[in-house]
């Protein structure tokens, strides 16, 4: 494992990627100190400076300026980072647990159970994830927990399939068969032999998937289906900037900050994960460089 990390960090672009991710992690951790919570009961509600409609330019008081209805962009971005991590990490953990349990059962026992479960994942995977998540989120109504649930519903099948194929590979290896003959019970074999040997691909896939979950979640909020109004969510802030595309002809850049700042926040987040992901792929598949 340490060897592996060393290999990844030897690449310049993946080093850059790691650096970006680290920055975001630090930003998410120190969020309460650099952007004091606005509403004590729910810090994710964006600070609002008055109720004027027109966005204000960045200044010393409002570091990144304000967007529509005077939502503070700096506050929204900082807490948005935390929200992005909150959503993506919970989705990834929940769906990998579901994936490991169902994929494990399906791969280990095979037969009828396997057939049913795999057909079920087939069905879910043949609906575009954005569409299915959109339907579930619409039905549940706005809310962070609802988004997490909706994304989990579309996210676990790929983990289940991946873990299943790993289990299929390992369950017929000699040491597992030997353990079976020696009288180890199923749960013990699973815990002791199969899980430690097949969990790594799932962990790697899950950690790289964080960016994709964030993308899906912010696409939902962008479409107005995700987080409640006024939440510190990158997608929502970008959606607000849609109303300020047209600016007066004398000053074409007066509202540019409402578009550029949230866009670059989400862009660098995804870029960081993609750079690291690319070098992962290079290590696993050294043929292509």
């Amino acid at each position, binding site marked *: 494992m340490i060897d592996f990390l060393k290999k990844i960090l030897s690449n310049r672009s993946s080093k850059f990627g790691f650096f970006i991710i680290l920055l975001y992690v630090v930003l998410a951790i120190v969020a309460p100190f650099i952007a004091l919570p606005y509403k004590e009961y729910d810090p994710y509600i964006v600070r609002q400076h008055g109720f004027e409609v027109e966005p204000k330019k960045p200044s010393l008081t409002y570091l990144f300026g304000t967007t529509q209805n005077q939502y503070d962009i700096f506050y929204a971005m900082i807490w948005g980072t935390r929200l992005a991590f909150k959503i993506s990490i919970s989705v990834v953990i929940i769906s990998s647990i579901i994936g490991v349990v169902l994929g494990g059962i399906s791969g280990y026992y095979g037969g009828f159970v396997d057939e049913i479960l795999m*057909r*079920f994942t*087939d*069905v*879910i995977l*043949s*609906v*575009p994830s*954005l*569409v*299915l998540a*959109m*339907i*579930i989120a*619409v*039905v*549940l109504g706005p809310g962070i927990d609802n988004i997490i649930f909706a994304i989990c519903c579309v996210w676990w099948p790929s983990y289940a399939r991946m873990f299943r194929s790993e289990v299929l590979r390992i369950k017929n290896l000699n040491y597992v068969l030997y353990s079976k003959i020696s009288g180890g019970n199923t749960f013990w074999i699973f815990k002791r032999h199969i899980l430690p040997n097949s969990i790594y691909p799932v962990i790697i896939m899950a950690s790289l998937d964080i960016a994709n979950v964030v*993308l899906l979640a*912010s*696409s939902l909020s*962008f*479409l*107005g*289906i995700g987080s409640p109004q006024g939440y510190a969510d990158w*997608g929502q802030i*970008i*959606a607000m*900037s*849609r109303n300020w*595309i*047209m*600016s007066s002809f004398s000053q*074409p850049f007066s509202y*540019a900050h409402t*578009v550029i700042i949230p*866009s670059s926040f*989400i*862009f660098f987040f*995804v*870029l960081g994960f*993609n*750079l690291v992901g*690319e070098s992962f792929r290079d290590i696993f598949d050294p*043929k*292509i*460089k």
Partner: protein
Amino acid sequence: MKKYLIKKIFFIPLTFLGISFIIFFSINMLPTSILATGYASTDKELTKKDIEELIKKYDLDKGILKRYISWLSKTFCGDLGYSTSAKMSVTDAIKLYLPATCELALFSIIPIFLIGNFLGLKSAFKRNSYFDKIVKFLSTFFYSMPSFVIGIVILYVFYGIFGIFKPQRYSLETEILISSGNFTIYTGFMILDSIINLNLQVLFDSLMHLLGPSLAIFVGTSAIFIKITRSSALEELNKDYVRMLKAKGLDYNCIVSKHIRKNILIPQITIGGFQFIRLLSGVVIIETIFDWPGIGSWGVKSAWQLDIAGLMGFSLLISAFFLIGNLVIDILYVIVDPRIRYD
């Protein structure tokens, strides 16, 4: 091969049935009175008394399985319901919106294939040159950009600052012209129709509206296409037969066009085909940003307005695209590479 295809074709309706049940089940978590609107056939029906009648008629107060069966029998008769967000029946709405989405998808997939092929192959051949580095950097750059960011930025730059590439499908004057009766709609593809009608104004106008969203799709999708072309071409270039061809004295163009291009078709079909299905299924986000009156923006609108029939119709249509598209990709594999056999 035949056996595989028959099995596959046999499974498609089954999977489709499963999909329809899952979507139906998720939507049916909504309150009954909202659900009843999905069964109405016109806007006029929707008084409180009518809703109660609809609930009775379609067993909306009964169990989920019974409801599903009654919905299924209704759907099989070709009645997909009335879409309250489009203010017409779902079948009419699909007929209206599908050509717009198809036009956009076709218009953007062709440059993606051509330019993506060119850039990917070139940068693979000139590996580690400045050209390669720039292409690699740009494709990673745009690959990491979420589609809504690309869309917003393009709309901002080309519409907000320069005032060209307007959102929507055509401007007001053209809409008046189209509805005036001097313009006949044959295919629903504005570009084709304007050429058939010999109307340059409509042609220019619809082109200007088409360029914005298709540029946004092009930028986002070609990045992944270039990446896959480049890496699979590199893999081919390392193979022995290419070295042999080089030793034989064949020049770059011949190696590329006669050998490499054919051998990298499989990954290209996988990625390109998948992207095309995704485009057809309405690039939900790009269509919403550019107010493009296609399947995707209709789906989002019906989600906002809790238009049950519209949402059902939209998601079933998209899933059908996915299933059929994947089948076509499977068949294309065999046509392109006769070594592949599904046994």
